[in-house]
């Protein structure tokens, strides 16, 4: 028997006390799950910088190591060598607690992500809900950091972030609901397995988009990077942080982005599913990371090409567009699912691609319907605004179609 | 979910329609605009009391809407009721044996729970056939009759509520629900009798009716409560139809009244309630005065609803009264004796009064009392079937009579108005020109109220005219033929004209049943037989008198000469005559359902096997009462009394009808007795003397003697004594008593000034108190639990 997949039994047969063996295996698993994203991050930093550079028609890091691959290491060293400043009048414990919270908020997500058919931290009955839940810890961390560092810029930044994060959690949760409904389970493993026949991204592209946008906002990167709007607030809530603590925030952010990619992969593009994933589990991990990095690239692309929003625009966009759309989406999908079940289009064998087609088509049409409704609504609102502006003899360009 | 096709659920819906109509009319469609009382075009019922003020007059739209709503409500009730009745009567062939019942837990009283429910058994099936029809007719009738009254919406709303209450009472499956309907009806009758509250007599009559029935209702409530305490249930079938409960009631001695069984006491209580409700002898005084209300109301109260309700309640509870008694074997108990005596006496007594009345409606009122006496007496001697039968037939022909008399009054008022409109030139104008004349008069007779208007007429014309006085009528048969014919039918039915009228069959059945006992030599039956025979004779007599005075001969006044309903095209004439025709049909033919099987010829025709009615109704009882064997004596008796009475009446009044101003022949026949009768044996005066004067006298005596004399005297003595001692102990007083009182006051003030700081206004203090006392309560609870544990 292989000692990779059933470590505990393996050790046990090696004559070790079963409880201890179990403990060791769990411990190893935890260590792996915890360290893996951190390691990935180091790579991600490089990827990100290269990518941004290419988009901005630069070369990017190219000095340290081949293609500047060792650049992140250098950064880490630099950050480590920096002094850890704790501002006077800061609320020390909270100040020091905030960065770990930030990292933990992301790392905790990894605990439930099914890396392969057989390898995952835990397969929670309520995995999806858990994912949304731990996101709120990040919010808390931001709050703590912003307040504890006893700095008005930090506090303002924190306020903005918290407002943003809390607001965007609503469409996020609504979007996660859709895969849950489709898979009929909140456990991520089940959700992945439910996508054998058909990835949910085809059945519910709208919720995929919603999830993508709101998770982008959750990470607080462009176009939603108001929390550290360099040009307005001096780096936002983490202004007072330096050295390794800042690095934690930093790493947390990077990990968050990539984690979102992983979540996209798990929820919408069938996680580790791929040829021979069952036979060779590590293959599944590779598939997962591949899909995840695709989404990651897209988010980088967005980040580097879309300008930053004003805070009122951001809020309007959330409350007046995303939230209604997500609610409408949930309603329509739920309705359609019932209809499908009643009509009998539900695939007999969910793993069969062909049998999945009708259901997928119907749901897709539903998505198109919702999207059309929302967009035309926005269009009419935009028209009205433009008309009002013309009436006021103001430049029509001031009005963004999206938002109000 | 309620399955409306389920026949057991359906009875719930019967009272709902009118109730909804009441609510809708009262809350929504009852719109009236204030117009000046002197504006006779807007406000028909002109009344001097209103001059110079504005009165609420219902708008035309509101009137139409109210009528529509009310009518639809009542039609709905009627349709459902007849559906249920139909289902009840032919329930897979065997009729009467089955009972529709449905009940819900209503309120839990300690160990027992009162369940509210509906029940349809043969008895209230009959009521369901009779009541909604009568109510419907009355409603249609009042559309025309009240056509020009202010506050019409209110009238229709109240009638709807009344109907709803009556139907509730009918479908009720327990005494409490029955009592609820009963009381609502009492309220409605109060409102309706006093509908024209501008007239002092009207509201006085309303108050009189209300208080009189209330006295009886309290006693009835006593009975209900006592029954509940004994049996723990008020459901009819649980009490009346399981022998052990009746057995138990029959054996337990009554409280307070030793030597009487509980069942008897309860029975007497309930009967007293009925005596009040259906105006039996001691408490009959309210009913004649109730004639102050609009005539449809009189019909409602005296035919369809209230008085029938009283009798219905007695019939319903009959098995309870009968406990420990077998009237057919001459074995009586207190309630039955009570009913026998009261009923028999009332029948004759009221009939005698009716003989001497000149008011159309008063005559009918007293005849109602006497007919109800018939029923009660019949129940007293155990003629269960006959009583129910007479209840139904009487409802039909009495409603008919009242509405006919109403249209007579209407016609008279019309004639009166016409006289006032045209001055006193007597042109024999036909109806056509008549109706033409309405059109041109702005304040034409299309806009006149009723009695109130009569008063108004006196205001500006000199001579007193009472459109209800039969002495003012005469020769109306030519003016209002339809009314005449229907009136005659009703009258004959009331008089029990042999063979062809409903009244004959029911009355004959009562007499037959009475004779059954009389032949065996039982006293009560004999009493009933002779009383009722005499009463029947008088009934026939005053019916003939009324008919003759009203319709025959020549018109005795200008008004009578011009009386009329305003042309066949007039809405009021249509709506007022249609119900008459419908009811006339029933007044004639309703009797044939109860022809005894052994009746010489007709028996074979109408009831070959058994009398449909009796066979149906007797299933309400556990042991069906014996059918009276056919006997020529009661038959001939009823032939004789009916024919004789009618003939005598015709001979005295119809043969050569009275001329104008000619006195009533009875006066010189009866002499002073006539005054006694005319004044109803001075009963009102008697009650004034017995109850009201003594009360005043006692209070006065108490005031003068006890209060002024004794108490004041004592007080003065004490005062003088104490003034002396007071002077003695003044000094003492000054420092002790004052000091004491002051210290009390100051102490209280001090405590208050300290205590007020409890009111800190700080929520946390309050919360602290809350927690503390919650803690205390918890400890108490634990202690009690611990004690309860061991």
């Amino acid at each position, binding site marked *: 028997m292989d000692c990779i997949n059933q470590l505990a039994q393996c050790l046990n047969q090696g004559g070790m006390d079963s409880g201890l063996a179990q403990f060791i295996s769990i411990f190893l698993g935890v260590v792996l799950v915890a360290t893996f994203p951190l390691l990935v991050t180091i790579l991600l930093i490089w990827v990100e910088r290269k990518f941004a550079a290419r988009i901005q028609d630069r070369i990017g890091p190219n000095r340290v190591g081949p293609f500047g691959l060792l650049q992140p290491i250098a950064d880490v060293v630099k950050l480590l060598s920096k002094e850890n400043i704790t501002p006077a009048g800061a609320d020390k414990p909270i100040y020091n607690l905030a960065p770990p919270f930030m990292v933990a908020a992301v790392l905790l997500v990894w605990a439930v992500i099914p890396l392969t058919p057989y390898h995952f931290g835990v397969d929670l009955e309520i995995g999806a809900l858990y994912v949304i839940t731990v996101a709120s810890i990040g919010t808390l961390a931001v709050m703590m950091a912003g307040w504890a560092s006893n700095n008005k810029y930090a506090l303002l930044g924190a306020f903005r972030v918290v407002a943003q994060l809390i607001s965007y959690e609503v469409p996020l949760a609504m979007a996660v609901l859709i895969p849950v409904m489709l898979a009929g389970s909140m456990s991520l493993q089940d959700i992945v397995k439910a996508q054998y026949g058909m990835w949910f991204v085809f059945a519910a592209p709208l919720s995929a988009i919603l999830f993508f946008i709101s998770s982008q906002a959750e990470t607080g990167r462009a176009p939603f990077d108001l929390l550290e709007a360099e040009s307005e607030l001096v780096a936002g809530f983490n202004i007072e942080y330096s050295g390794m603590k800042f690095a934690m925030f930093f790493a947390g952010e990077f990990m968050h982005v990539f984690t979102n990619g992983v979540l996209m992969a798990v929820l919408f593009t069938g996680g580790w599913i791929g040829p021979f994933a069952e036979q060779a589990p590590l293959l599944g991990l590779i598939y997962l990371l591949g899909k995840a990095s695709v989404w990651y690239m897209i988010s980088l692309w967005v980040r580097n090409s879309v300008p930053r929003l004003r805070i009122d625009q951001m809020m309007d966009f959330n409350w007046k567009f995303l939230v209604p759309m997500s609610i409408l989406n949930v309603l329509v999908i739920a309705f359609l699912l019932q209809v499908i079940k009643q009509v009998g289009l539900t695939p007999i064998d969910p793993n069969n691609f062909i049998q999945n087609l009708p259901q997928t088509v119907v749901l897709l049409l539903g998505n198109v319907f919702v999207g059309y409704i929302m967009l035309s609504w926005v269009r009419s609102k935009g028209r009205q605004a433009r008309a009002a502006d013309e009436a006021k003899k103001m430049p029509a360009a001031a009005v963004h179609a999206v938002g109000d | 979910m309620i399955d409306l096709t389920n026949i057991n659920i359906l009875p719930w819906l019967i009272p709902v329609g009118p109730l909804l109509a009441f609510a809708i009319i009262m809350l929504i469609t009852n719109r009236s605009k204030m117009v000046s009382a002197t504006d006779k075009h807007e406000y028909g019922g002109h009344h001097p009391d209103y001059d110079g003020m504005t009165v609420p007059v219902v708008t035309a739209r509101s009137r139409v809407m109210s009528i529509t709503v009310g009518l639809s409500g009542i039609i709905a009730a009627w349709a459902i009721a007849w559906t249920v009745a139909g289902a009840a009567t032919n329930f897979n062939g065997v009729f009467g044996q089955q009972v529709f019942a449905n009940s819900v837990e209503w309120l839990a009283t300690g160990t027992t729970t009162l369940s509210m429910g509906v029940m349809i058994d043969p008895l209230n099936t009959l009521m369901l056939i009779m009541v909604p029809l009568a109510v419907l007719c009355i409603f249609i009738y009042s559309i025309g009759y009240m056509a020009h009254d202010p506050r019409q919406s209110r009238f229709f709303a109240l009638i709807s509520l009344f109907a709803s209450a009556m139907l509730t009472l009918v479908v009720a499956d327990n005494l409490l629900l029955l009592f609820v309907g009963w009381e609502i009806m009492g309220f409605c009758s109060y409102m309706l009798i006093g509908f024209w509250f501008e007239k002092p007599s009207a509201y006085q009559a309303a108050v009189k009716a209300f208080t009189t029935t209330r006295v009886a209702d309290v006693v009835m409530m006593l009975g209900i409560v006592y029954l509940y305490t004994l049996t723990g249930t008020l459901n009819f079938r649980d009490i009346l139809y399981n022998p052990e409960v009746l057995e138990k009631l029959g054996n337990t001695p009554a409280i307070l009244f030793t030597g009487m069984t509980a069942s008897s006491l309860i029975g007497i209580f309930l009967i007293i309630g009925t005596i009040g409700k259906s105006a039996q002898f001691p408490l009959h005084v309210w009913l004649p005065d109730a004639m102050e209300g609009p005539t449809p109301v009189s019909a409602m109260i005296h035919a369809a609803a209230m008085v029938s309700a009283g009798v219905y309640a007695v019939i319903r509870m009959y098995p309870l009264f009968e406990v420990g008694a077998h009237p057919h074997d001459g074995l009586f108990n207190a309630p039955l004796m009570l009913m026998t005596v009261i009923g028999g006496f009332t029948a004759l007594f009221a009939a005698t009064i009716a003989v001497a009345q000149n008011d159309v409606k008063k005559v009918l009122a007293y005849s109602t009392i006497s007919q109800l006496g018939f029923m009660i007496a019949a129940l007293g001697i155990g003629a269960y079937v006959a009583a129910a039968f007479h209840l139904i037939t009487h409802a039909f022909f009495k409603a008919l009579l009242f509405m006919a008399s109403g249209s007579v009054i209407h016609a008279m008022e019309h004639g009166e108005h016409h006289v006032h409109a045209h001055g006193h030139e007597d042109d024999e104008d036909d109806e056509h020109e008549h109706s033409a004349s309405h059109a041109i008069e702005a304040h034409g007779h299309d806009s006149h109220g009723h009695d109130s208007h009569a008063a108004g007429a006196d205001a500006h014309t000199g001579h007193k005219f009472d459109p209800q006085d039969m002495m003012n009528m005469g020769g109306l048969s030519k003016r209002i033929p339809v009314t005449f014919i229907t009136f005659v039918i009703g009258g004959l039915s009331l008089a029990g004209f042999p063979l062809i009228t409903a009244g004959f069959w029911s009355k004959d059945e009562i007499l037959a049943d009475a004779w059954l006992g009389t032949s065996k030599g039982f006293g009560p039956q004999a009493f009933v037989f002779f009383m009722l025979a005499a009463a029947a004779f008088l009934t026939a007599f005053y019916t003939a008198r009324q008919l003759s005075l009203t319709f025959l001969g020549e018109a005795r006044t200008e008004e009578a000469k011009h009386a009329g309903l305003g042309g066949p095209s007039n809405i009021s004439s249509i709506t007022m005559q249609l119900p008459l025709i419908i009811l006339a049909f029933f007044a004639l033919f309703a009797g044939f359902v109860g022809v005894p099987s052994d009746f010489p010829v007709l028996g074979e025709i109408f009831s070959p096997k058994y009398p449909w009615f009796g066979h149906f109704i007797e299933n309400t009882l556990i042991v069906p009462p014996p059918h009276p064997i056919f006997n020529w004596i009661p038959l001939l008796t009823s032939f004789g009394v009916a024919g004789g009475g009618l003939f005598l009446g015709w001979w005295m009044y119809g043969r050569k009808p009275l001329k104008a101003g000619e006195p009533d022949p009875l006066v010189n026949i009866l002499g002073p007795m006539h005054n006694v009768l005319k004044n109803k044996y001075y009963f009102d005066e008697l009650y004034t003397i017995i109850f009201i004067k003594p009360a005043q006298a006692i209070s006065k005596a108490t005031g003068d003697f006890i209060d002024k004399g004794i108490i004041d005297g004592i007080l003065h003595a004490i005062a003088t004594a104490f003034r002396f001692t007071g002077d003695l102990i003044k000094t003492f007083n000054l420092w002790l008593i004052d000091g004491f009182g002051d210290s009390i006051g100051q102490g209280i003030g001090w405590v208050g000034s300290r205590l007020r700081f409890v009111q800190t*206004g700080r929520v946390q203090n309050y*919360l*602290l108190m809350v927690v503390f006392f919650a803690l205390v309560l918890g400890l108490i609870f634990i202690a009690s639990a611990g004690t309860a544990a061991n």
Partner: protein
Amino acid sequence: MVPLWMYLAVAAALFCLGTYTVLSRRNAVAVLMGIELMLNAVNLNLVAFWRFQSPLNMAGQAFTAFVLVVAAAEAAVGLAIIISMYRSRRSVTVDDVDMLRW
């Protein structure tokens, strides 16, 4: 397996602490926090009883969910009240809000 009474004990302690917060803190926000603590004690009781007494009847969990809802509503409204109170009186001290006194 941890016995029921331990959970109940924890809940009791939590409830008492919450009560004490409510009763003794001057700051309205702290008072609200105390209320939250009490509600959570109740929740803990509900869930514990559900688990130990009738793990198949969802009443316990459902009630907990409703308590959560109520707690959220209560916090929102309470804090809103506190904020408006702060606006009008420039203070969130409970003792300062004692207009309703003798």
